[in-house]
């Protein structure tokens, strides 16, 4: 579980996060949504410890990240997995090596044990015939699967995804969303996803936090987002005529 308490962060005197409080529970896909510049990326990077908060607390199962010493922080980081927007696979390594990298770095497993575990997650994310391929030789969707496999290979307690559907076609986006949700449920991971994708919001949003100008203005789930009358949410989520029609069809609003 990740508890965020009154989180504030400024850059060059400009307040980007204005006292955000929320709780991300394990086994749920937690989404951060909002327009560009709303503070989503800063929020995710602050959760990851890339930015230090100006004030407030981020508690990982009760442990305040900012109060930990460097070694404890390092240990906590090994319990985190991250799926980057552009996958961020290491160009110089093939698929297997990319996935096994966190195990080589942080565990004392033998090469045979690493190979077994890598194959296990490759099977889990359904990567077929890609073990020896370089990242540049596989499609965007497969790169995302590799990124997910790398993020979960070390059995993380916390999984962070920055716009995991970015650059993917709608069908592959759905597959990736479903994969993240299945993994979250299966391993009881606390998953936090930063997204713009409205399909993701409606399909896998078990807990959604909507940010506007650095403030949390709405919190709920995908069923509640269909029913809400909050104008900010309605403007953001149902931005196209098609989505407005879908909402009308489902809710008569």
């Amino acid at each position, binding site marked *: 579980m990740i508890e965020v308490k009154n989180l504030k962060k400024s850059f060059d005197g400009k307040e980007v996060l204005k006292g955000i409080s929320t709780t991300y529970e394990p086994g749920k896909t937690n989404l951060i949504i909002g327009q560009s510049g709303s503070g989503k990326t800063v929020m995710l990077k602050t959760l990851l410890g890339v930015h230090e908060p100006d004030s407030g607390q981020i508690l990982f199962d009760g442990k305040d990240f900012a109060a930990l010493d460097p070694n404890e922080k390092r240990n906590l980081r090994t319990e985190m997995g991250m799926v*980057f927007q552009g996958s*961020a696979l*290491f160009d110089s390594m093939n698929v297997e090596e990319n996935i096994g990298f966190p195990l080589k770095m942080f565990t004392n497993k033998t090469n045979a044990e690493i190979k077994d575990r890598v194959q296990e997650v490759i099977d889990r994310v359904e990567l077929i015939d890609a073990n020896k391929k370089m990242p540049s030789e596989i499609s965007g969707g497969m790169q995302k699967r590799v990124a997910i496999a790398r993020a979960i290979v070390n059995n993380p307690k916390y999984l962070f995804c920055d716009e995991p559907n970015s650059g993917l076609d709608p069908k592959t986006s759905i597959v990736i969303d479903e994969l993240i949700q299945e993994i979250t449920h299966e391993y009881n991971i606390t998953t936090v996803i930063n997204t713009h994708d409205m399909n993701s919001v409606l399909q896998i949003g078990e807990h959604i936090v909507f940010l506007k100008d650095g403030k949390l203005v709405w919190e709920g789930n995908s069923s509640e987002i269909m029913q809400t009358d909050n104008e900010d949410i309605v403007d953001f989520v149902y931005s196209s005529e098609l989505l407005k029609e879908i909402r009308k069809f489902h809710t008569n609003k």
Partner: protein
Amino acid sequence: MLGEIFRRPTKWRLMKNLIFKEIDELIIGSLGIVAFLSFFIGAVVTIQTALNLNNPIIPKYLIGFTARQSIILEFSPTFISIIMAGRMGSYITSSIGTMRVTEQIDALEVMGINPLNYLVFPKLIASITYPFVIALSMFIGILGGYVAGSFGGYLAPEEFIKGLQDDFTPFHIVYAFIKTAVFGFILATVPSFYGYYMEGGALEVGKASTKSFVWTSVAIIVCNYVLTQILLT
């Protein structure tokens, strides 16, 4: 940046492989071009010297002496290092810069890995073997001079060898390798700095590589002057 390179070291099991990979890429991979350039420049230095020392009272063996001094003191340590600023420097800046642009460095940070140690330390250690490249350049440069001088009919092979042995000062070799060690350090660190701290996209990777080449060359030329002033005067 320098202090951070040595903090939170990567596991030796992995670091060892990274160091060998960098030695292969940066040092072994440079040997071909260095050998090619050294042979022909050594040959040209000898021919130019022979053509300019055409006074009959100047002994022919001075051609070998001049070729040796030019190659050992300046051509191999300094000019090969500037060429390496293009080859090694561009490789280092563009590879680290591309990792920055594609969030690979962020991925290392998020995993709790010190990216400076993981990326720059192996290059720094690989640069310790850089004097080997320059030693090879010196040998092949002199060989090029010998071949051009002897087979071009400018002087007899014995005269060239006599010139090589004439008034030999061992400290000149020490001076050349002190310079080489400093240039090796510059070649590993300046391009890494420009790659690691770059911002932007693919275009900026190219710009960073150009900047890195310019400033690595400037640093080599300035250090060359300072070291020569300190060590040879």
